């Protein structure tokens, strides 16, 4: 069997395919899941306090993509620790918590509350959510704010800290270097792009939040480019995210310099997507005569 294990910023994953935040809930009610193929999961974005989220409609489909504006609906950290972490502690793959806040100190506070909770393997700092009024994206496109948040979390936990980057920047390398310097163990690239779809009967945006985050295959070439730019800018591992539907798509990110990938929207269309991507990567490596993922040639010019 081809060896697909990878080490990402300290954490050893049995495979390079993770479930992306917000597309997997808290992992407790995912249908038809084939655990063996799951390298790990990132839970739905959480805040300190419960959040209602945005009014419907929250979703609109676009060519090869979808817009979402969920608004980080969630039960808050206490409920997460009470209702979900216990089951995570039982599982044979690591669960990373996607943490969100309206200030650097809120992020730090969240990390402190979750640090040491059985079942919590690490953090994915979300400084790239386009669907919240405060925080979110704001932290993501300002290098100073981004590193402030990263430091705040770094100070409060010894667990692995991943930082999820937004594509809505003129130069992702600047942010990538800033959060690396601030102590991130890995980068996740990327979150959704801000988009809008217009309802021609109502003469207004389809989504009640007006805009939403674009995900799905439509954004893949943009995501591969940004993940590649990030990978070239830093020494820590980069986890590629965006529009991965099939193994070939994941392999584009891996060849472009990513250590692992996350799969999101694809699982809506195909509940078996993660297993198919995982198995397809193994089959590709085998066909090319590689015995492990580490042997996959990477395209990562340093300039």
């Amino acid at each position, binding site marked *: 069997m081809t060896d697909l294990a990878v080490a990402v910023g300290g954490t050893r994953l049995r495979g390079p395919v993770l479930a992306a935040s*917000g*597309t*997997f*809930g808290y992992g407790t*009610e*995912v*249908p*038809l899941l084939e655990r063996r193929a799951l390298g790990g999961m990132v839970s*739905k974005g959480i805040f300190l306090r419960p959040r*209602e*989220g*945005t*009014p*419907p*409609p*929250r*979703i*609109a*489909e676009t060519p*090869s*993509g*979808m817009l*979402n504006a*969920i608004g980080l*609906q969630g039960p808050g950290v206490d409920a997460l620790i009470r209702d979900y972490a216990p089951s995570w502690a039982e599982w044979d793959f690591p669960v990373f918590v996607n943490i969100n806040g309206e200030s650097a100190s809120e992020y730090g506070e969240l990390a402190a509350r979750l640090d040491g909770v059985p079942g919590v393997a690490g953090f994915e700092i979300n400084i790239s959510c386009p669907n919240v009024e405060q925080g979110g994206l704001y932290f993501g496109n300002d290098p100073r704010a981004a590193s402030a948040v990263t430091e705040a979390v770094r100070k409060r936990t010894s667990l692995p800290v991943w930082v999820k980057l937004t594509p809505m920047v003129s130069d992702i390398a600047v942010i990538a270097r800033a959060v690396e310097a601030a102590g991130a163990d890995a980068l996740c690239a990327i979150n959704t792009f801000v988009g809008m779809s217009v*309802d021609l*009967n*109502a003469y207004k945006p389809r989504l009640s939040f007006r805009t939403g985050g674009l995900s*799905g*295959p439509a954004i893949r070439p943009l995501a591969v480019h940004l993940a590649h730019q990030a990978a070239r800018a830093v020494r820590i591992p980069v986890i590629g995210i965006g529009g991965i539907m099939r193994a070939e798509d994941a392999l584009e990110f891996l060849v472009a310099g990513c250590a692992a990938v996350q799969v999101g*929207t694809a*699982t*809506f*269309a*195909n*509940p*078996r997507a993660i297993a198919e991507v995982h198995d397809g990567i193994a089959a590709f490596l085998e066909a090319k005569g590689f015995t492990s993922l580490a042997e996959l040639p990477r395209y990562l010019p340093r300039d």
Partner: protein
Amino acid sequence: MFLVDAPITAKREVARDMFVITMRAPEIAASVRAGQFVNLGWSSGPLLRRPFSIYRVDGDQIEIVLKAVGEGTSKLVAMSPGDVLSCVGPLGHGFGLEAGPRSIVLVSGGLGVAPMPLAAREAAKLGMRVTWVHGARSSEDLCTESEGDEVIWATDDGSQGFKGTAVAAAPDADLVLACGPNRMLAAVAGRWPDGLVAVETYMGCGTGVCLGCAVPLKRGGYDRACKEGPVYRAADIDWAALPSHLSYAVMA
């Protein structure tokens, strides 16, 4: 929940531009309850699956009823026996009928006919007297495949049966179920706060993980049409906040 490749076995037109598609999906046929739905995808289909109530069950076959209201449904109604649909289901909580009520009224508008045949059969099995009131714009739009002890038609233009809405035409009963345009369901909530209504929302995953199918609740907050729903106690929904422009509404 199952993921099945379901070959289409038959297609029939039951009203103007309204089609019933039959497909073989044994596991789903064996386990579905009235009010539950399936999420359909197909190669060269749109990115997201499309949710459809299960209309009828016959042996290892399930049926859905639909109209072409957009890209996906247009492609679906153009399909023919032999074509294969990827089918996830049964999904959601149905009407959850239990013994007790002696009489039940099913109120449906336009495509809201979809979950009623299963509901009628479950109710009959539980010994309820079933009255089905179905409304549409005009007689051509009226799907007249009927079940139950009594059937009442209603048309906006009076071209068949009662002239007016199904809600207006409906008698009272121990239990009321309704499906149709969200606007019609709001009216149902006014007359029968304890009625059970099947609502429609956009859906991302259909399986409870994306929170895309938010249904606004009177008590505040949202829950998921694909998981806690699509069936709700009529008075529990914040109708003003529920989008009423979805396709049932568009077409009914």
